C-alpha cells in the first residue's frame, strides 16, 4: 500500500512529517554521517543570531529523570558565517531547510529574516521567541502576548516564506499565543520549546548548570508537550509542529493524533542518530495497519467523548 507521507505547513509542503529540531543537529553535517537527510521532512537549523555567540560556559548540560537540562546559550556562528559556511553544505543535503532565528530585539529578528530571505535554499523560518536567554527588559518575549504579536507581524512583513513561531511552554494558556500568531499572519506554530528547570549538586550546593537554570527536554516532558499541542489544536485553527520527548514512532504518532501536522525530533538525536528514519518507517507501518492512506489524516484525529 502506497502511503502519502506529505504534509502541509502553511505554504510549505514537506516530504514527510519528520523534522529535526533546532539546536539538536547543529547545521546537519554530523548527523548526515548517520542518515540521509534527503529522506526526511527537513531540518531546522541551530538558532541563528545576527552576530556570532560563543554560548554559555560549562557545565551546559545535565541529565535528569527521563530528561536533560541544557543551557547552551544559543552558541552559533552568526548570520554571516551561516550564509558563507553552513548554507553551501546544507544545500548539498537536498532536504528542506527551515532556518531558526533567535534575537534579543524585534529589530534583530526582522534584520535576520530580511537577510536570510534572500537565500533560496531556505524554505521557511522558525522564529524562536521562547529561548530562556532571549529577554526584553527582563521579560521573555515568549511569555508576552504583545511581543509575540509584534514579532510575528514584523517578521511576516519582510518575507513571503512560511513563518513558524516556536512557542514557549512556560505559560498558562499556550493557545492564547497561537491565537495572536494566527491573527498576525503567522503560518504555523511549533510547540514546545524546553521547560525551565534546574538541578543542584547537594555537596557543593551549586547548580549543576553554570547558567543556574536550563531547558528541560526529553521523554519527561512528553505528556506536557502533548497537552500543549492538544490545547492549541482544540482552540486555534493553525498548523502545529509537535515537539517534546519524542523517542520512537509511537510518540510521533501520538503527537499527530493530538493535533500536530508534523513533528520535530530533538534529544533523541543525541542517543540514537538513526531515530528519524526508524520513526518514519514505524509511522508507515502504523498507517498500513490502520489503513490510513494519507498520513496527514492523522493530524488532530483524536476522539474525545466529552461533556
Amino acid at each position, binding site marked *: 500500500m502506497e502511503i502519502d507521507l506529505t504534509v502541509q505547513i502553511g505554504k510549505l509542503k514537506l516530504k514527510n512529517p519528520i523534522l529535526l529540531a533546532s539546536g539538536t543537529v*547543529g547545521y546537519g553535517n*554530523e548527523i548526515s554521517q548517520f542518515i540521509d537527510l534527503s529522506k526526511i521532512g527537513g531540518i531546522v537549523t541551530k538558532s541563528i543570531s545576527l552576530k556570532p555567540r560563543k*554560548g554559555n560556559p*560549562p557545565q551546559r548540560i545535565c*541529565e535528569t529523570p527521563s530528561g536533560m537540562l541544557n543551557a547552551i546559550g544559543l552558541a552559533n556562528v552568526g548570520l554571516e558565517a551561516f550564509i558563507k559556511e553552513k548554507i553551501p553544505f546544507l544545500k548539498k543535503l537536498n532536504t528542506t531547510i527551515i532556518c531558526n532565528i533567535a534575537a534579543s530585539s524585534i529589530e534583530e529578528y526582522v534584520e535576520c529574516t530580511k537577510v536570510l530571505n534572500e537565500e533560496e535554499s531556505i524554505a521557511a523560518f522558525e522564529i524562536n521567541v521562547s529561548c530562556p536567554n532571549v529577554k526584553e527588559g527582563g521579560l521573555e518575549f515568549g511569555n508576552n502576548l504583545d511581543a509575540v504579536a509584534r514579532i510575528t507581524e514584523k517578521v511576516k512583513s519582510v518575507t513571503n516564506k512560511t513563518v513558524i513561531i516556536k512557542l514557549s511552554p512556560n505559560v498558562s494558556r499556550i493557545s492564547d499565543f497561537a491565537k495572536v500568531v494566527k491573527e498576525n499572519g503567522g503560518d504555523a506554530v511549533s510547540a514546545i520549546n524546553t521547560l525551565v528547570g534546574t538541578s543542584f549538586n547537594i555537596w557543593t550546593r551549586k547548580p549543576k548548570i553554570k547558567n543556574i537554570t536550563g531547558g528541560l527536554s526529553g521523554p519527561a516532558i512528553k505528556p506536557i508537550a502533548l497537552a500543549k499541542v492538544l490545547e492549541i489544536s482544540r482552540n486555534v485553527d493553525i498548523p502545529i509542529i509537535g515537539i517534546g520527548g519524542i523517542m520512537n514512532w509511537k510518540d510521533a504518532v501520538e503527537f499527530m493524533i493530538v493535533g500536530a501536522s508534523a513533528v520535530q525530533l530533538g534529544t533523541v538525536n543525541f542517543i540514537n542518530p538513526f531515530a528519524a528514519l526508524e520513526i518514519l518507517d514505524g509511522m508507515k507501518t502504523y498507517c498500513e495497519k490502520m489503513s490510513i492512506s494519507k498520513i496527514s489524516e492523522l493530524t488532530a484525529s483524536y476522539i474525545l467523548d466529552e461533556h
Partner: protein
Amino acid sequence: MVIEKARVISLSKISNNYYLIKVHSPLIAREIKPGQFCNIKVSDTDFPLLRRPFSICDVENDNLIFAFDIHGEGTKILASKKPDDILDILGPLGNGFNLEGSYELAIIIGGGIGIAPFPFLVKNLPNNVAVKCFIGGKTSEHLIKYNLKNIYTATDDGSEGFHGNVVDLFNNEIKNFLTKNFRIFACGPTQMLRSLQKIALEKNYDCQLSVECAMACGFGICQGCPIEKSNGDGYYLVCKDGPIFNADMIIV
C-alpha cells in the same frame, strides 16, 4: 564513526570498584585510535536516557576493552552486564592523542581511572619511544596497572609508593629525564590536570591532556561539552576538538 551492537565477552573486576569490560565490536576496533572514546548506551530502555562516554582502554583484534569505575546509575548498570549481553556503542569519537613528531620518551601520568586510555596508547607508540608511567590513586587499592610497565606509583595515603599526589611525584622524578626529549600524556581528575598543566606551561613541556566533561551526544551536535580556549576566543567542544588537548590550548 558508527553505531555497533556489541556483544559483551567478559566483565572483570580489577580492584576496588574498577572494572574491565570486553566487547566484540569489529567495526570500531578496526578504526579506533588511542585517546579516542566511545559513547555507550548501557541499557536498552530509556533509563538512563543518555549515553555514557568511555575512553578506549585497549583493543584485542575485534574486541574493545574499556576500564571504568562505578560512579552512578549508568556505570552501575554497566558493571552488571553479563557475557552475551548487547551494548549499543557509538564510536570512535574524538581526536585521540597525537603520536606524531620526534620524542624518545613517553611520560604517562594517570590518576585513578584516568589510566584508562594508556594501555592502548602504549601499544601504539613508535617502537623507538621509551615509556615511564606515573600512576596515582587514593590508596594502593586505587592504583590500576593493567597492561602498563615502568611504573612509578603515588598514593594519597602512602599505602604504596610515593606518599602524595602523582603530579608531585612526577615533578620530583622529572629531573632524571630532562636530558631526554619527552612528551607527556596525562589523564585524570580535573584537579590533577590543572596542577600538571601549570607545571607544563611554566617549563613548557610537550604535554597532552585528556579531559572529561558532561556530554550528551558525543559527536558534536548538542554543543553540551565546551572547554574554554586559552586564547580567550570562545570554546572548543571536548567531544570533537578533544578530548585530547595540548596543555597550552585550554583552560582546564
